[in-house]
């Protein structure tokens, strides 16, 4: 009996499993996937765990904004559902998770996916499926520059190259005899910034006397900074992620080195990092950066209506720290997303939403600095191209001069 029983059991198990799997056949395509009369389904991938998990809070902040909008009645009566998936910053996870969101959960659009490699890995797929890949959370220039070949993909924040051009303008104007040294992370992020700086300097590119790279796995950039100092650099650019930036600021002071200017990129300049560097002994002299969003820790915005609105919104997220600049970023980009959906009105198709986002955006974002326009036209698909120079006062950032506009310089 035993042997036959085993066979029977095996065959039965096979049939049962087949039957169980048969329950979910591929549904027929419909024109407005992810939209019902009372809901809009958006999806995202972000790094909730893993090496880049500090960014994960962005997705939660975005969700907090959608909750806020839903509580006020939603977008034209539709409530937004936001499905967040953790790809741990690994493109090998991004691909199946994105496919799952598109094919299984049937999202209307992907919104604010994190990471250059991660979003590159699904760009072809989303474009071939004609699913909007909106406002990716990376400043890699390719997401705006290669719009003609990827018409379903858009960035949002200033492209790294655009931002670096703003530094170039500032350095030529304020430090015309600078001997520039660059510390950059040896990945798309650092290299993109470096290219923007070199292009932006144009005929002045010889001002760069040395550039040193470090790997994201490095323990400390002390060696590279010592080289830069020994090359006589007097104007230093740090195209690094937050942790090595804080380390660098402390090391520079330790080397008894006071460059005429230290330029930080906007990713690494939130006040909490500056204070960490200060605790670690950094003098923070002549530190300069740029900003396009309001700083939640800056007292000058205490009574600003946009900032007050932000504080209300972020209270919807229990794990979000209101002072973390990434959260303000999340709320600001979610604002643009909702703005696009509102404009789409009754014509809630992927095509129409993509068209508004890529070609017809003209928004004043309450969380961005006064004067910053989130804008796209049929020939320009970089929504944010204005930033303002800021300098560190010892306790906070101070806005300097006026907005520098690099719109149209990146083709």
């Amino acid at each position, binding site marked *: 009996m035993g042997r036959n029983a085993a066979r029977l059991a095996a065959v039965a198990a096979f049939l049962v499993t087949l039957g169980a799997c048969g329950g979910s056949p591929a549904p027929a395509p419909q024109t407005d996937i992810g939209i019902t009369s009372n809901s809009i389904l958006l999806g995202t991938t972000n790094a909730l*765990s893993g*090496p*880049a*998990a*500090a960014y*994960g809070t962005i997705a939660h902040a975005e969700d907090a904004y959608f909750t806020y909008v839903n509580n006020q009645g939603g977008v034209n009566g539709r409530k937004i559902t936001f499905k967040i998936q953790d790809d741990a910053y690994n493109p090998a996870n991004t691909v199946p998770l994105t496919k799952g969101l598109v094919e299984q959960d049937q999202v209307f659009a992907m919104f604010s996916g994190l990471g250059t490699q991660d979003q590159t890995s699904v760009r072809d797929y989303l474009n071939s499926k004609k699913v909007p890949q909106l406002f990716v959370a990376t400043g890699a220039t390719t997401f705006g520059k290669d719009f003609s070949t990827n018409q379903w993909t858009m960035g949002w924040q200033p492209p790294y190259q655009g931002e670096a051009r703003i530094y170039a303008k500032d350095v030529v104007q304020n430090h015309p005899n600078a001997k520039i040294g660059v510390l950059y992370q*040896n990945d798309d992020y650092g290299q993109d910034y470096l290219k923007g700086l070199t292009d932006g300097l144009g005929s002045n590119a010889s001002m760069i006397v040395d550039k*040193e*790279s*470090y*790997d994201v*796995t*490095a*323990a*400390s*950039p*002390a*060696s*590279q900074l*010592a*080289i830069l*100092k*020994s090359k006589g650099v007097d104007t230093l650019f740090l195209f690094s992620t*937050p*942790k090595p930036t*804080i*380390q660098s600021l*402390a090391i520079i*002071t*330790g*080397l*008894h080195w006071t460059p005429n200017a230290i330029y930080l990129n906007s990713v690494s300049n939130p006040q*909490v*990092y500056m*204070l*960490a*560097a200060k*605790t*670690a*002994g950094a003098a923070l002299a002549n530190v300069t950066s740029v900003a396009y969003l309001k700083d939640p820790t800056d007292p000058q915005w205490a009574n600003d209506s946009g900032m007050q609105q932000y504080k209300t919104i972020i209270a919807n997220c229990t794990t979000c720290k209101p002072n*973390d600049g990434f959260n303000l970023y999340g709320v600001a980009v979610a604002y643009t997303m909702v703005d696009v959906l509102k404009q789409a009105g009754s014509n809630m198709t992927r095509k129409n939403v993509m068209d508004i986002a890529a070609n017809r955006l003209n928004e004043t974002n309450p969380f961005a600095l006064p004067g910053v326009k989130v804008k796209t036209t049929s020939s320009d698909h970089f929504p944010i191209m204005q930033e303002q120079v800021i300098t560190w006062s010892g306790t906070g950032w101070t806005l300097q001069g006026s907005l520098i506009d690099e719109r149209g310089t990146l083709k």
Partner: protein
Amino acid sequence: MQALLQQVVSGIAIGGIFASLALALVLIYNAMGLVNFAQGEMAMLATFVAYALINRGMSYWIVFPVTLVLAFGGGIVIQRVVIRPVERAPILTLVIITLGLATLLNGLAGFMFGYVPRSFPSAFSAQTIDLLGVFISYRDLGVMGVSGLVLLAVYLLLQRTTVGLTLRAAAHHPEASRLLGVQVSWMLALGWGLASAVGAVSGIMVAPILFLEPNMMQSIIIYAFAAAVLGGIESPLGAVVGGLIVGVTVNLAGAYIPFVGGDLQLAVGLAIIIVVLIIRPNGLFGRAATRRV
């Protein structure tokens, strides 16, 4: 010349960091013939505990010994709960378990404390000393000084005390020790407790320099492995010398070998591990091991 010296000095400074973690690795190896892949993560978690205590308003000088005691206890608990059931299992099983432990602790720390790098107070000033145009901070000197003290303590413990003797005996000749009435399993637990405490010292020393976050020790664990292997994995002195050599080598290779540059420094660590293991598996200060059958 000055630039070269600065590279050497900052190499020594970072080498002190590698050495401090390598010491903990050496201690575990002496206690049970195992490389603990979770050593860095245990140190990181202990540092987070210290951070939490300091944030509650406790003084640094109270937190420091309290953390060491907690880390010591934590090490013993980990050994009792996780290692003891497989104490006599093959090395493969043990390595896999410590790797699982590393993954688990890293995830837990991320979940509990988040991934934003935090500044951690230091007992030493961030001021630097000027040695003929070459700079080194009190903090770096502090790391080295404390590593030296720990080295001395570990050496005295292993070589000059009955506990140390019993510890080593239990690791090398468990059966014979058992016959002589040594509680072998508790000796292993003691080894884990001590290594965990040494790791905690390392974590607290380096956190002001590397900034505290769950992945803090991942960037240095490979170099610590390289340091321990280079020095001879049994030798505490070897760990410190190995750490300094690795620190200086990695810095000089990064600065003066264009192919390496800043971005292949980690590969230099790997190369050191592989070359030493192939050419001189016992390292600089290790004794030739006999193969157990």
